[in-house]
């Protein structure tokens, strides 16, 4: 079974530029998560989708971050414009369904450096 795919693996941009990350979850997984992991910290949930609907985006900085999962499969996370403090690893995860008790399967992450 193929795992969660993310691209690109690395990205370097200047502040005020825009960037987009792509995630393809495990086939058949209804729930998709985007996390931000700043160096030395635990992952922070940015947004959670159940199929193509948003379940939780309470920690997504909506003035600059946006995410979509139009067909309930793959997803894109965008930052526009980027700030220095957005430098982090962006992790995508999926699970068969949402709610508690369900293991999340993580992708390798995208390391973003904003200069």
């Amino acid at each position: 079974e193929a795992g969660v795919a993310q691209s690109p693996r690395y990205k370097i941009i200047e502040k005020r530029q825009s960037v987009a990350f792509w995630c393809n979850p495990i086939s058949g997984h209804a729930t998709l998560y985007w996390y931000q992991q700043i160096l030395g910290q635990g992952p922070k949930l940015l947004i959670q989708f159940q199929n193509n609907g948003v379940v939780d985006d309470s920690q997504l900085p909506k003035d600059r971050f946006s995410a979509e999962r139009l067909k309930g499969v793959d997803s894109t996370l965008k930052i526009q414009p980027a700030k220095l403090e957005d430098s982090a690893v962006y992790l995508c995860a999926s699970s068969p369904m949402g709610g508690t008790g369900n293991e999340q399967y993580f992708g390798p992450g995208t390391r973003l450096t904003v200069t």
Partner: protein
Amino acid sequence: AQSVTQLDSHVSVSEGTPVLLRCNYSSSYSPSLFWYVQHPNKGLQLLLKYTSAATLVKGINGFEAEFKKSETSFHLTKPSAHMSDAAEYFCVVSEDGGFKTIFGAGTRLFVKA
């Protein structure tokens, strides 16, 4: 509101000695609790999970954790550390009936030869 506190940012043990990584949580509901491991330059991997069944949970690679409701703790243990256990470990809480997942700050485990 739920939260997770990992009591040690770094733990260092010698190979062959026991491992104890401590985690306390708070939750308004019956939580599910997880431990994930992150090796350098690798993705997060589930070690074990508690979902209101047996309070002593066994995971992969010889790790186990005990859910203690009275102490609101979910400490991770292993009887004998291996060099390959050196990694970052995250305690995670997810509330029953909800969809919020919160990671602890992580504990980096060092294993000395």
